[in-house]
């Protein structure tokens, strides 16, 4: 095995552990922290079913962002839609045999990489040219966009311009997943592929310690996930109940 292959193997194992453990700890923290008061942003659904629908619209269509500003919504939604499609298509690099739906959508979904990149460039332009957004941006906000643009661009280039030995890449990950190091092939050394794999590892590592926590966070947001029924049901946190004794 080449040095590069060993390095990537080690990095991907480490990054996977950091991502899974980091996210699990964060989700546990959100889960365990009480919400002592009913604070849904009203008008809010009066039933759990209604809350599920509200959350669905929020997560899938970015309903609140749509109400806010159409440009941010358009670029943000394009990016997330593209990212989701591309990720779904990437299942083909980890499955053997490949799940049928992934095979069906693959030829179409690969073009959604462009939606992802256009969305990201739009968000970057907004961050650069709208004075209010520029004011609130930290260096990490720009770096996150560059990281994602880098991942999208290197991925799209290997798909549409200079093909890489994708069979070897898949075989590498299949071996990683099954902890089989005997017949593990080397990772291709073309710069685009190396950059793509390297940037993805960085993304996995920073996910649980960055603003990407908005992904689990939205599901725990009390203004969105609470049922509007405070008059019907008494809602009280354990720490607040202690004040009553």
């Amino acid at each position, binding site marked *: 095995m080449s040095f590069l292959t060993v390095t990537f193997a080690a990095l991907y194992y480490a990054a996977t552990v950091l991502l899974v453990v980091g996210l699990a700890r964060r989700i546990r923290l959100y889960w365990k922290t009480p919400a002592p008061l009913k604070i849904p942003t009203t008008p809010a659904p009066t039933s759990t079913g209604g809350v599920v629908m509200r959350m669905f619209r929020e997560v899938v269509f970015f309903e*609140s962002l749509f109400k806010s500003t159409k440009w941010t919504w358009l670029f943000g939604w394009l990016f997330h839609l593209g990212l989701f499609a591309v990720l779904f298509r990437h299942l083909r690099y980890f499955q053997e045999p490949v799940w049928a739906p992934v095979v069906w959508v693959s030829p179409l979904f690969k073009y959604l990489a462009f939606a992802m990149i256009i969305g990201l460039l739009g968000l970057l332009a907004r961050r650069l040219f709208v004075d209010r957004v520029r*004011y609130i941006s930290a260096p990490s906000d720009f770096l996150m966009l560059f990281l994602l643009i880098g991942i999208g661009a290197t991925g799209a280039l290997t798909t549409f311009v200079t093909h890489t030995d994708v069979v070897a890449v898949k075989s590498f990950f299949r071996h990683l997943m099954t902890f089989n190091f005997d017949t593990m092939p080397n990772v291709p050394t073309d710069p685009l592929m190396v950059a793509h794999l390297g940037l993805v590892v960085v993304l996995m590592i920073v996910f649980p310690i960055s603003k990407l926590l908005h992904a689990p966070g939205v599901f725990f947001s009390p203004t969105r996930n609470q049922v509007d029924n405070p008059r019907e049901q008494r809602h009280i946190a354990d720490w607040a109940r202690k004040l009553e004794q």
Partner: protein
Amino acid sequence: MAKADFEIPELKEYPEIPPVQPGATAGLKSFVAKPEMQDALGFPGELVDGWQEKAIEHMGELLGKYRSLQVFLDSCVKCGACTDKCHYYLGTSDPKNMPVARQDLLRKVYRRYFTFAGKYFPKLVGATDLNKEVLDDWYSYFHQCSQCRRCSVFCPYGIDTAEISMAAREIMDRIGLGQKYCNEIIGKVYKIGNNLGLPGPALEDTLEGLEEDVFDETGVEVKYPLDKKGADVLLVTPSADFFAEPHVDGLIGYGKVFHEAGIDWTLSTTASEAANFGMFIGSYENMRKISMRIREAALELGVKRIIFGECGHAWRVAYSFLNTLAGPWDFLDKNYPMPQHILEFTWGEIQKGTLNIDKSLNDDMVVTFHDSCNVARASRMGDEPGGQFTIPRNVIKAVCNNFVDMDPDTTHEKTFCCGGGGGLLTDDLMEIRVKGAKPRMEALRNVIEEHGVTNMAAICAICKAQFTKVLPYYGLGMDMIVSVHQLVSNAVILTGQQTEEDESKEDDAA
């Protein structure tokens, strides 16, 4: 026009988003609470030694108690969706009045002390130490937030700046840096029973005066009872309703509706305040203590129902929190919502046909309606989501022939704060109050010009007081603002009331 030593924003036909002007309102600070005011609430009198460590410690404690705070501080992606949504930003151009930047005053400290990235790469993620400069910013800008929640409507993660500013105020209180306006008022509630410090005899006097006024006007004996044991309904209303204009005209209206509905009701001296400034300062303990007065009054008077008068944040605390803070209310009559809003009650009576209404008595007005932020975005009326919008409008339309809504981007859940909510209704913050009212004033002026609107109705004591004070700065009359129950009061003809027609008939007969 009222005189001001600051520039009054120019009203535009179409709202504009101003370019950022850093530091525009950094110097606007409300008065700091005196030691005795802090003591009364159980907070240290002045800035304590080692306040940095204590502040971080309290922040850690709050992070463990409030999921909202923990999730909101982690989740913001700085997308900018909220940047043009705050009335204080639109009115002042100060970028720290953009919701995300206001939150970031706390978030950058959170990141520094509680996150991996902020501990090891502070510059990269914009994390900073808590120092005097940051504390100064906290004091300025967390008292330039009216906790109206407009930003939370537009945030893709529902981040509510109100939760952040409440937490920041709680932290500042606990290190001895409280705000005079809020904390002095809470002290009065504990000592006397209401925000305005009106003692029992003064209330009694005022209510007797109201009874006389209504009798003189209508010839009907409408009662405004105080501390009446065994009454069915306890009315809890903001203390401004007892004497301020136009609030008191609303109180007269509640009494007329109760009278016509044949309801045995009472006010209470000890619970002579619907407002709960404990919410503004983010203090669960104080909010609970203030709420418990209502429970105690209800038990002592032996009432079966509790109804709240027109007040925005009071209705939020009542509707959303009272069951949590002072419940369970199992000793009350379960056939009625607990608590009930006076507009829910009045709308019920209108539908039942209990009230004899002559809408033409309000024909001198073209009315528009200001949705109060806490009612619109933090509570409900009736059984359906959005009842907080339809029920007040239904009542207004039932008693007025001429009603016009303002621009939909400024009503319902997108309503703009009056500019004086959340503990900002104090003269030392007049500049931010006037500037923060700009978006509402623009929408109001547009309906005045297009539809000849003469009056704006409100259902919040703070909105009414704020508009009365601020309208003149924009060249509008302070008496434009009316209570919704004032409109009801104008149009209701009491059973046995002498009308002008009756009087002229009597004259003819004579």
